[in-house]
């Protein structure tokens, strides 16, 4: 499965964002096939070469280009591709409305499935960080104070959630967070966050779920 990067102007700001992303999840781009969608920027041939070089410095291998005019390309550049389907992306791919999902499900032959969930059977200790941009994360133990779980999808914690949980990290407003004991330091869905101080005391120390409703992060007890 290829991953589509869509740069936007100004490029320096976009690159800064890429850097921020790589810092947060250092191995994210390792060994990944990346397609560069140039529709959002107007670049000359040398501009494209320069951008590719800057991405190469960051360990990002571009396998193909999209959204560029054939005139812009030269023999030294990666091939132009068409009809690539953006996966849940860095640039917050289209929100997965149910109609959208159905369309995607019926379009084209089924591709080889990457794992879409991660199961962690041990407690997550203070200072540890679990980053899984591809889907849901399930933790059987507790997430300690000072630990964090970042998931592209939803987060399920069967122990106490005492650290940070960030769901929908790749831009998924439908992601949710579930925990059997809410003592979280911070929860976040699709970039909207709430700290422990901003949580109602009545929602602490009990099972809870968090979801995003009209851009407001809601928390409700599950018991």
């Amino acid at each position, binding site marked *: 499965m290829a991953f589509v990067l869509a740069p936007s102007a100004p490029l320096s700001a976009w690159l800064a964002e890429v850097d921020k992303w790589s810092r947060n999840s250092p191995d994210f781009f390792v060994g990944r096939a990346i397609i560069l969608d140039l529709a959002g920027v107007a670049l000359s041939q040398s501009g494209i070469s320069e951008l590719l070089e800057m991405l190469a410095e960051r360990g990002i291998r571009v396998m193909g280009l999209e959204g560029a005019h054939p005139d812009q390309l030269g023999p030294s550049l990666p091939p132009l591709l068409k009809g690539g389907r953006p996966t849940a992306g860095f640039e917050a791919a289209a929100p997965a409305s149910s109609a959208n999902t159905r369309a995607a499900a019926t379009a084209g032959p089924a591709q080889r499935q990457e794992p879409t969930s991660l199961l962690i059977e041990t407690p*997550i*200790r203070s200072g540890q960080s679990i980053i899984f941009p591809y889907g849901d994360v399930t933790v059987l133990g507790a997430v*300690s104070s000072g630990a964090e779980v970042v998931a592209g999808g939803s987060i399920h914690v069967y122990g106490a959630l005492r650290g940070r949980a960030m769901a929908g990290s790749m831009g998924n407003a439908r992601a949710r967070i579930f925990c059997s004991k809410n003592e979280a330091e911070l929860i976040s869905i699709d970039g909207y966050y709430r700290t422990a101080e901003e949580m109602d005391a009545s929602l602490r120390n009990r099972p809870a779920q968090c979801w995003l409703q009209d851009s407001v992060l809601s928390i409700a007890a599950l018991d």
Partner: protein
Amino acid sequence: MAKVIVVTSGKGGVGKTTSTAALGAALAQTGQKVAVVDFDVGLRNLDLVMGAERRVVFDLINVVQGIAKLPQALIRDKRLETLWLLPASQTRDKDALTEEGVGNVIQEMRGKFDWVICDSPAGIERGATLAMRFADAAVIVTNPEVSSVRDSDRIIGLLDSKTEKAEKGQRIEKHILITRYDAQRAARGEMLTIEDVLEILSTPLLGIIPESEEVLRASNIGSPVTLNNTASAPARAYLDAARRLKGDDVPMSIPSDRKGLFDKLFGRRAA
């Protein structure tokens, strides 16, 4: 072959050195050959608690660097002939410790002793990571207080990822030792309870050492608390913990010095 144990905590001042000396002396009293090793290079204290500060010639760094041989640096305890100390250097810094050098020293000690107990410095830097690096088991010293518990949690994470055993895919044996526990204050809600600590750390309990003046008194005269006054509450708690470390099944209790009605009513036993 010796069992190598690291006494660690993350946070400073929780009782690592006191516990190292007390457990070392307790194990040596059962006739086992024990070495206690001070990894706190630059801030050594184990020599003081063991009462051997005036007999230090060579130290761990000298042995790691090959300047001295291990038998030259080991100091035999005057009270227990199966107890030995390998002191740290006070003048050098932790960068003088190399992983290979420490590995060689630990390997050599494995053949000479039944127990090698490594007193880790506070923090998670080089000294602390090297102290735990070659351990078979860890004693995590925790005070019933939130910052200590969180630091212990961090250390447990490192034990499960950065030790040689963990990197080989094996599990390092871990034990929680709760020190400075005050049953009365816990009953009043001024301290975390034993249950709170164990719930957060989800690691088995080795023992509960009550807060006691006896600990400071023993330190000041350079004697492990398990040698100075074996009948005192902390000494009995450490002796029990040492037996559990050996694999004996000892019921968990919190020894007490006070014989007041209060203690009979509250919190004498842990779950």
